[in-house]
């Protein structure tokens, strides 16, 4: 019981800090970085469901992100749809992409899967670039409007023009995604996924339908990545094929690995750390990616469960007073 109330307190404090942030941070650029960190956290959380909890390295999440972003942006700019109505189709398109590539490759062994998802990502950004009539090609889609105001029944409208409003929107979506992932990993589905990650053969012998559960996790995760893309498109107001490219997916992998693979808070910690710290250490600007690469190798070698996992082990060691079995 004490443990439960402690967790509730931590969540309440974290929420309070997150809500109060726009009033504390006055620097516009820093605030922009924080909003980006929230959006990338949504993407990283979605990827964590597959990479961290199911043990599948997907490099197509940049593409799902882009698919969601492009679907929403095109529907809003070219068909004048209401922003909120574009969210379900955007998530569906991303999920459909996930199911398509999943059906083809999920029965394959790990590395085949990683490379096939990567190929899928390349094809998606290539199509977005070359299908000029629909996507405006390399010029990209510009002036994507802010989300449509929501009428508040006699109390005026809830508008989303300002950055602060968009920050709260992204934050709310992140909270919903986190809640969803939390519920999922603490359900029988989550246990099946964990079994698959630890030992596929054993899991299938125990009656876990491998393809079904992998596809389930993968399509939900793709839809969530698409959702991250939708928020990104309405915040940045400009999209081009690079946004759907491999790098966003690669970065998401990096955030998770450094934050902590398969830990609930890992994606958040990793994203916050990697989005803000390099900007603060401006001195290393030229060496940023070089250092990140080295950091990635060091983390995966010496701290396979990342910052969060490392802290967890440290705390265990302190309370138990001995090395935890590992």
């Amino acid at each position: 019981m004490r443990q439960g109330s402690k967790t509730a307190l931590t969540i309440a404090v974290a929420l309070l800090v997150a809500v109060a942030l726009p009033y504390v941070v006055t620097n516009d650029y820093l605030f922009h970085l924080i909003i980006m960190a929230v959006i990338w956290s949504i993407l990283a959380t979605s990827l964590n469901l597959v990479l961290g909890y199911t043990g599948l390295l997907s490099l197509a999440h940049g593409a799902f992100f882009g698919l969601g972003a492009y679907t929403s942006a095109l529907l809003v700019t070219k068909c004048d749809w209401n922003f909120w109505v574009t969210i379900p189709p955007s998530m569906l398109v991303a999920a459909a992409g996930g199911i398509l590539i999943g059906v083809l490759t999920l029965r394959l062994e790990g590395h085949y899967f990683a490379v096939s998802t990567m190929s899928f990502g390349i094809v998606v950004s290539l199509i977005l670039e070359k299908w000029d009539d629909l996507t405006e090609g390399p010029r990209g889609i510009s002036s994507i409007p802010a989300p449509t105001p929501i009428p508040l029944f006699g109390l005026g409208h809830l508008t989303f023009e300002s950055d602060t409003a968009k920050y709260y929107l992204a934050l709310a979506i992140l909270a919903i995604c986190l809640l969803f992932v939390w519920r999922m990993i603490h359900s029988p589905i989550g246990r099946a996924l964990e079994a698959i990650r630890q030992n596929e053969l054993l899991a299938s012998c125990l009656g876990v339908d491998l393809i079904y559960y992998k596809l389930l996790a993968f399509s939900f995760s793709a839809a969530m990545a698409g959702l991250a893309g939708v928020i990104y498109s309405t915040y940045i107001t400009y999209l081009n094929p690079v946004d759907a490219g491999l790098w966003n997916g690669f970065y998401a992998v990096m955030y998770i690995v450094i934050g902590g693979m398969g830990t609930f808070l890992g994606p958040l910690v990793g994203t916050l750390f990697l989005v803000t710290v390099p900007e603060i250490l401006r001195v290393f600007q030229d060496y940023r990616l070089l250092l990140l690469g080295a950091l990635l190798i060091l983390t995966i070698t010496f701290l396979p469960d990342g910052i969060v996992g490392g802290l967890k082990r440290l705390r265990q060691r302190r309370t138990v007073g001995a090395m935890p079995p590992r």
Partner: protein
Amino acid sequence: MVGSIYALIAMGVAMIYGVMNVPHFALGAKAMLGGYVAFFMTAFFHQAYGLALVGSIVVLAFLGLGVERWIFRPLAKAPGINSFISAFGLLLVFENFALIAFGTAYRRILSPYDRQMIHIFGANLTMQRLLVVIIAIVLMVALHLFIKYTALGTAIRAVAQNRRGALLCGIHTERIAGITMAIGSGLAGVAGALIGPLAMVYPTMGDTLIVKAFVITILGGMGSIIGAIIGGYILGLIEALGAMYVSVDYKDAFAFAVLVLVLAVRPQGLFGKSQR
């Protein structure tokens, strides 16, 4: 011609994957480094292109040894995902090192063979293009003979088939892994040096190369060297024919379309061992 380059790198990927079970994503970046080694050597030694080729093999082979010892060996017992991520980190390090050390400029390796034209069967091509094909084929044959008939080659095959079994027979598996890595990296290096005079040498040139090489190894079946060679030429042909008859815009997409089709029909690749 492009097929030969793809095949060389894909062979490296296939060997390293077969022996170490590591998808070495940074091999394209090694081809890029090989290109730079050749570039600087031709610049210093007055267009001694042959020397530059050998130089890029030697330098990259040593780099491969180091990478195996310090990066991949500590990860041998960890899940497969970890070495993939590590290889990706390595790619970032190599590329950005090249970016910082050599700048973003596109460099052209000067090769004395680039200006000689020859005519075969009514086709005109430069000596350099022919040289690429010949060297690639010679290397492939040599590697095949080496793996098939020498004691060391037999040991490499043994480790690829069954690591524990090889260990029981007294084979130093870690040393074999290092040697394989050196060979694979050397192949990537010479591929970079060979393509240098035709295309340009620049820090991100390895990206397309390695993506294609991975598509090829999957096409041919992970770990199968023959599959890598044939897959390389198939891919080169598909790209050339597709660009000519279908659409130049989507040239790079054909490779992936073929990959998805092959995987749908034959999940273990054209020449791969069945998994079950």
